[in-house]
C-alpha cells in the first residue's frame, strides 16, 4: 500500500545532500515550512542553492538556515524584508550569492521546470538590468527575453491537509509557491497540519494532486515565524 507519510521531519530530510538545490515554499512567513527547515539545519547539508521568494526574517526558519552558513546561493525576488538582517550580512560579505529574479518570472520558471518546459519568453525585464545579457526575440511588435525553467533536487512545502497519497490543500495565501514547487522538486516533502484518510478530500477541490508529492510529515501545530521572531528565538 502506498503511504508517503514518515514519522519525523528529520527522517524526511535525511538524504538532502551537500550542493543540492532546495525549493522552499512560502511568501514571507505565509506557507513557510518552518519545521522542515529546522530539520534541515539539524541534518547539516551545506553549500545549498535555495529558491524562495524572500530570505526569511529574524533568526528562525530560512534565515536560520542562511545564518548557519548552509546556503551558498539564493534565487529570489525580494531579499529585503522587515526583520531580515541575516541575508544582507552574508550578501555583503560575499558568502551567499544572489540571483535576483522578478517574482512572476520566478514563479513561471518554477512552473515551467515542473511541467517539462526548458525555457520560455516573457516581456518582463526587457530593457532593465535584470534583462541584460539574455536572449531577446521579437514576437509581433514586442520584445521578449528568454528565461529558463527551474527544477530542484528537493522541495519543502507547507500544506493544511494531505492524504496518504499526497493530495494537498493549502491555507489561504499560504498556497503561493507550494503547488508549483511541488511540481518542480525531484523529491517533494510536505509538512501538513492535518493528515486524513484517502477519500476524505473532495477530488474536485484538491489543489495539488498527490503525484507531485513524495513524502509527508504530520506537523499538527506548526510554529509561526513572526511569533518566534517576536519572542527573540534564534534556531537552533
Amino acid at each position, binding site marked *: 500500500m502506498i503511504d508517503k507519510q514518515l514519522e519525523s521531519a528529520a527522517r524526511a530530510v535525511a538524504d538532502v545532500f551537500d550542493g543540492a538545490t532546495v525549493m522552499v515554499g512560502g511568501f514571507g512567513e505565509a*506557507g513557510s515550512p518552518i519545521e522542515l527547515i529546522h530539520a534541515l539545519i539539524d541534518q547539516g547539508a551545506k553549500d545549498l542553492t535555495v529558491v524562495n521568494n524572500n530570505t526569511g526574517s529574524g533568526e528562525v526558519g530560512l534565515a536560520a538556515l542562511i545564518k548557519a552558513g548552509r546556503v551558498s546561493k539564493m534565487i529570489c525576488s525580494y531579499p529585503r524584508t522587515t526583520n531580515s538582517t541575516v541575508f544582507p550580512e552574508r550578501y555583503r560579505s560575499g558568502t551567499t550569492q544572489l540571483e535576483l529574479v*522578478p*517574482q512572476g518570472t520566478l*514563479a513561471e520558471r518554477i512552473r515551467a521546470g515542473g511541467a517539462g518546459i526548458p525555457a520560455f519568453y516573457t*516581456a518582463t525585464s*526587457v530593457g532593465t*538590468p535584470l534583462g541584460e545579457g539574455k536572449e531577446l526575440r521579437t514576437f509581433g511588435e514586442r520584445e521578449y527575453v528568454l528565461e529558463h525553467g527551474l527544477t530542484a533536487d528537493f522541495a519543502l512545502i507547507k500544506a493544511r491537509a494531505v492524504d496518504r497519497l499526497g493530495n494537498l490543500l493549502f491555507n*489561504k*495565501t499560504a498556497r503561493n509557491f507550494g503547488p508549483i514547487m511541488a511540481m518542480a522538486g525531484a523529491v517533494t516533502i510536505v509538512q501538513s497540519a492535518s493528515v486524513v484518510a484517502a477519500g476524505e478530500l473532495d477530488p474536485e477541490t484538491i489543489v495539488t494532486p498527490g503525484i507531485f508529492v513524495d513524502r509527508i510529515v504530520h506537523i499538527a501545530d506548526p510554529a509561526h515565524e513572526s511569533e518566534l521572531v517576536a519572542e527573540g528565538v534564534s534556531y537552533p
Partner: protein
Amino acid sequence: MTQASTPRGLTRGEMAQRVALDIPDGSVVNLGIGIPELITQFVPEGRELIYHTENGLLGMGPSPEPGQGDLELINAGKRQVTAIPGAAYFHHADSFAMIRGGHIDLCVLGALQVAQNGDLANWSTGAPDAIPAVGGAMDLVAGVRTIYVITQHCTKKGDPKLVDACSFPLTGVGVVHRIYTDLAVVDVTADGFRLVELSPGVDFDYVQQHTGATLLPIAEDRAASHV
C-alpha cells in the same frame, strides 16, 4: 531645484482620492505598497472594484479587526488583510498569469522616477551597497494593461521625479500612462509629458519649474484622455 517653503498641492490622501475618481466601475486593480493602498478608502459610491494581490488573492478586503487576522492571509506587502465574499486564492504561477496575460485592468504604483517616454524606475537607486530587491514590479508594468503612477512631484531633497530620462535602473520601458502627483495630473503621450489637470493653488509655471522635462499644456481636447 528647491521647493517653495509654503506647501502647495494635494495631501497623500487627496492624491489617492483623485486617482480613485478615474478608476471605472468593475475594474480589477492591483495597488502597490504605500500611497496606492490609500485609494481603496476613496472609491466613489456605486462603484465596485476587485483588488488583486500578487501573492495569490483576488478579492482582497480591508485589514482585519484586531485579533481577527490570519498570519497566512496577507497582501503583497506581507500585511494581514481579509478576503471579500466571492474571493479566490491561487498559486503564484496563476497569479502572474493574470498579470502577464493582460487580465488585470489597472495597476497603481509608486515611483522613484518617470521619464517623458513612460520609462519607470521604482525598484532600485542603484546604490552599490544596497541589497537589490524587485518583487513583482517588473511583471506588473510589463503585463497590466494600464499603469498609473502616484507619487510626490519631487523628492524630499526637491529633485524632480518626472524627468527627461531615468538615471535609476529601469523597472520597465515606456510603460507608464498617467502620473498623479501632489501638484498635477500628467499624461505620458507620444509627444512627452502633457498636463491634464493642476492641483488647486498651483499654476502651470510652478509645475514646469518642478518637472525635469518639457511639460506640454493641457490639451484643447480634454476628451482625448485614454481612460
